[in-house]
């Protein structure tokens, strides 16, 4: 759960869209899944390859996740991100991005990273 002091970041909402996807209550185009993470296609792709990876836990942001998740969850999540890139065939070049807080452009308050590669769309 969120424990950070971010003034503008809301508390974790168990009904956010990514929580629903994790519970199977909302659909997604799954790319990868393991015990730590789920990766699926962004429904509004901004590049030829645009996938989101989310941890299987209730963390609102990168800061919250990095502060609060246990070490094996942190390493498991980031290892999963690398596996996603390999599986997508973009290991030669990709960008990882994460927006933190409303001022950082974050819209869904379940921590997620964007994996982007290829021409912008």
């Amino acid at each position, binding site marked *: 759960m969120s424990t*950070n*002091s*971010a*003034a*503008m*970041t809301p508390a974790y909402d168990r009904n956010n869209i990514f929580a629903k996807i994790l519970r199977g209550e909302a659909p997604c185009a799954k790319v990868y899944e393991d015990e730590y993470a789920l990766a699926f296609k*962004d429904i*509004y792709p*901004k*590049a030829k390859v*645009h996938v989101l990876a989310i941890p299987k836990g209730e963390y609102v942001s*990168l*800061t919250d*996740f*990095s*502060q609060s998740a*246990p*070490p*094996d969850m*942190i*390493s498991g999540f*980031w*290892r999963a*991100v*690398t596996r996603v*890139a*390999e599986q997508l065939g973009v*290991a*030669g*070049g*990709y*960008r*990882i*991005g*994460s*927006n*933190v*807080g*409303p*001022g*950082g*452009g*974050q*819209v869904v308050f379940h921590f997620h990273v*964007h994996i*982007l*590669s290829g021409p912008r769309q």
Partner: protein
Amino acid sequence: MPSQPPPHLAPYDRNNVFARILRGEAPCTKVYEDEFALAFDNIHPAAPVHVLVVPKGEYVSNADFSASAPDALIAGFWRAVARTATVLGLNESGYRLIANHGPDATQVVFHFHVHIMGGRQLRGVSSQAPVPGDGT
């Protein structure tokens, strides 16, 4: 601890500028440091606040780091990223984290690093216009 980079990336070069910064052989404006990571100002800022965070270990990229580093270093590095954001006061105003992997994604320095950018209203990472350059 030299690690095996992915085959498409050059092996770790111990004379890259971030390695020299870590050894104290090149200057930096330090923002945060602990046993796992060092954070310093990007000398070519693309935002009012633009800091780079590097792990204390020889890893060419995020993929190399995530595949090869021990759990304690991976967790320690990401906790350091969060502490850096806290030191910078960015948890309230928001920030963007970027890591470019590989020459195709404009990675320039082949010591794994993440960009922390803030200090103004940022659009989502996926709608950002130009690709931010690396620090050197």
